[in-house]
């Protein structure tokens, strides 16, 4: 059965030619010389006032990167990237200076206003209920231009700041955890990022602290010919909790721009991290000109017992998406979750999924992935679930649906399921009622149809996270969640 009309309309409303965030901001920029070399890396490191060890770390990564080849196993195709035709550092001229928002270039503030990102704490306080407050770190090309609610978070002991600042102020913490989840040598793009990363957010939640507000980072690529290489590191110490949101947009351009980020999450004993992404990079035009290459390495390490990491992603943007937010379930009883909705339009290519690596005893994971392909796009789910010898009692449930709109697009599913432990129970896309028969029964008893009940259960938690998104397009994200997958192909 083909897709229902309502779904087609909703997907159409976010088609590539409907991109709303494609405007450009005129700001005077300071850039590193074009191309990639040791000098450029030294330039970036000096700009950030980094200690010697950090520079050495970058240079080692660069040397390693030179020996590596670009991966080609993903189901995406693109012209060869000229890594020497990119500016690796671009920052608004007055940086690093702004002590308060008043010193930030008004053009940049206007940009964020247009994007609907609240940077002024007073305004946020005036308009919104206190429990819905969100602290924002705004990253503009290569630098963080503003971070809100820093003082208030500091009172709770939470560290939330640009990573370049954290390297200076908390070098021991950063040094202990940076690269411990995604090693410098992990993969081509992660190694490149390690060499040239410019900014990103650093979060540390002390033991037993429930972060008093949502944290979020808003990434904006603005300058031409630049790549954005941000690095995010979140550490949830024992018994802590944090919910973190990430949003991204870029102007409309005919050229392709590279975005190669690394996100590392560390959850210690009994800690919980919720990481949500609304990825809305410029997807290119209907002919496939321009758009962002989104080559991102995201990984969470459930290092402690009973820890939880949840990835939620709504993917609508980027010309090419190559990302697999993963969980290493190291601690006994730890839990990893991955909820994803990827909508591709136009000529977009999405190759995304997750990895759930069960190492500890009684670890559980759940994967819910929905791919919707329209236009001439290709949408691939690629996921790995593995249980190692010691992962006694590991459990995974995976459900991935795809929906095609029109017959010019493609939907692909490439799951890898590897079990080395007899007591590990893996189920890949068994019947929907397996989600939880009790919940289904409860809903159906109250008059919901099976499909309504399934949608409610599958989407319930995703909605929960997205309703709290501070960004304007949260509305759209919510619309996406409610898209019916009636007529899904498999």
């Amino acid at each position: 059965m083909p897709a229902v009309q309502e779904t087609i309309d909703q997907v159409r409303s976010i088609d590539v030619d409907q991109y709303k965030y494609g405007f450009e901001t005129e700001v005077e920029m300071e850039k590193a010389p074009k191309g990639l070399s040791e000098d450029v890396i030294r330039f970036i490191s000096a700009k950030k006032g980094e200690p010697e060890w950090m520079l050495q770390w970058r240079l080692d990564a660069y040397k390693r990167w030179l020996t590596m080849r670009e991966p080609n196993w993903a189901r995406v195709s693109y012209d060869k990237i000229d890594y020497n035709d990119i500016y690796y550092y671009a920052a608004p001229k007055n940086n690093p200076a702004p002590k308060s928002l008043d010193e930030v270039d008004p053009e940049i503030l206007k940009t964020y206003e247009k994007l609907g990102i609240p940077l002024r704490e007073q305004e946020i306080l005036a308009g919104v209920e206190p429990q819905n407050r969100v602290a924002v770190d705004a990253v503009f090309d290569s630098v963080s231009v503003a971070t809100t609610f820093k003082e208030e978070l500091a009172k709770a002991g939470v560290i939330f700041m640009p990573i370049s600042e954290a390297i200076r102020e908390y070098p021991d913490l950063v040094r202990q955890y940076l690269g411990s989840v995604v090693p410098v040598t992990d993969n081509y793009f992660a190694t490149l990022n390690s060499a040239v990363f410019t900014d990103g957010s650093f979060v540390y939640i002390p033991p037993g602290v429930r972060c008093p507000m949502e944290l979020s980072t808003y990434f904006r690529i603005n300058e031409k010919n630049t790549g954005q290489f941000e690095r995010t590191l979140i550490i949830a110490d024992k018994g802590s909790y944090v919910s973190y949101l990430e949003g991204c947009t870029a102007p409309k351009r005919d050229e392709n721009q590279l975005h190669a980020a690394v996100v590392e999450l560390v959850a210690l004993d009994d800690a919980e991290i919720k990481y949500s992404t609304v990825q809305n990079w410029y997807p290119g035009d209907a002919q496939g000109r321009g758009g962002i290459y989104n080559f991102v390495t995201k990984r969470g390490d459930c290092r402690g017992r009973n820890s939880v990491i949840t990835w939620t992603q709504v993917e609508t943007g980027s010309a090419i998406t190559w990302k697999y937010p993963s969980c290493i379930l190291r601690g006994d009883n730890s839990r990893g979750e991955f909820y994803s909705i990827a909508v591709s339009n136009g000529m977009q290519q999405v190759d995304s999924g997750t990895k759930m690596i069960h190492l500890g005893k009684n670890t559980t994971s759940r994967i819910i992935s929905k791919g919707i392909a329209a236009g001439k796009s290709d949408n691939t789910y690629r996921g790995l679930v593995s249980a190692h010898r010691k992962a006694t009692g590991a459990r995974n449930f995976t459900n991935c649906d795809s929906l095609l709109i029109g017959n010019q697009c493609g939907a692909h599913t490439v799951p890898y399921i590897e079990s080395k432990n007899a007591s590990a129970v893996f189920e890949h896309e068994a019947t929907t009622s397996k989600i939880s028969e009790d919940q289904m029964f409860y809903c159906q008893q109250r008059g919901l149809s099976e499909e309504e009940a399934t949608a409610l259960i599958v989407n319930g938690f995703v909605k929960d996270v997205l309703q709290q998104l501070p960004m304007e397009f949260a509305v759209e994200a919510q619309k996406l969640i409610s898209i019916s997958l009636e007529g899904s192909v498999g």
Partner: protein
Amino acid sequence: MADVTLMKTPAETALAQAYESAKAILPGNVESRAEAFELFTRSGLPHRRVEEFKYTDLRALMREAAPFAGTPTASEAKAALQSAKALAGVEALQVPFVNGHFVRDAVDFGSLPEGVEIVPLAEALASGHDWLARLSPVAWARQNPVYQLNTAFMADGVMLRVTGQVETPVHLRFVTAGNSAVATATRVLVLVEEGASVTLLESHESPNGANHQPNDVIEMVAGDRSNVRHVRLNAEGDGALALSTLTLKVGAEAEFFSINVVAGAATSRHQVFAILDGENTKARINGMTMVKGGQHADSTLVVEHAAPNCESRELFKTVIDGEATGVFQGKIIVPHHAQKTDGRMMSAAVLLSEGGTMNNKPELEIFADDVQCAHGATCGQLDEDLLFYLMARGIPRKEAESLMVQAFLGEAVEFVEHEGVHDALVSVVEGWLRARA
């Protein structure tokens, strides 16, 4: 990944030498062999960085290449066939091969069942038989190194043509004899004409302790409204490295069933490349694998729905004991025009021991928007509650496990309609379970 040029392994070097010395005497078209070997040489033995061989690293598993077996003498062939046991109880037309060579004396060409024609392959290749032109290789197979090796080295086999409703099963019996390791490359070409029907049996056996390396290919073209049942039994000895490929092109409104049963070999890989080429065809491809000790068994499958309104069902069951490894890689491909496709692929595995490994990769590749494709994979151990239930009724644990394994595997076998064959397969399962107890 860095594409460094890999050093040739001893096995690859041996294969290159074997090809050099054999190419002049192998029958048939030299060009197609040369092309296949050239393609093989370019990539070498596939290793774990090659996606299709990610879980079966042939480069590591095939340390040495055994020499190709010569033609057995009449008495050798007779002795080998007399000791053959696989599917022996099933009444069928016997088409035997010993050490990869067709034993023509064992077939009474004068009294073949009506609707069956057999031509020895070596003869057909040498004379350029006109049936050869009707076989069109499946693209997926041509890119496959195991198939390429077979194409380069195939020395013997038969061409089988089915023109009517054939009641008696045709049994292709492959026996590799002797204790010193040999390699074989056989190919059987099967033409099933429009509306024809046949049951094709295949058995592969060799003595324990010998490191034989059989590589066999069945290439089948089944016409419109044909009905083919294909049962393959791997009962190789415990040292064998057995590679096999089934390619299939099936026409419209046809029915096709195939099951591969793995009960032997140290390492095995069975590949199916099927193209559903006409509308309203139904195909069911099953697998049943039992491995123990250090065995490694791989089932790889590509089903392309090249026409609309076809239905395919794939069901693979794997039981793993000891430190054995099971692999399932399946892929359903639905191109733009294959609307109303209904495809369902399922792989289920049971791990009976601590040290076993199961790797599943059920893939879908869909370009049509009005289709139904499902894939599933499960992996786990026997349900403790059910075992307890049986044990509470006085059934010892091992026996309870056996009952549950039989029930689990039974699902894949129940589609075998031929009663004698069905029973023979059930007793293969029973034999395997007995050996375990």
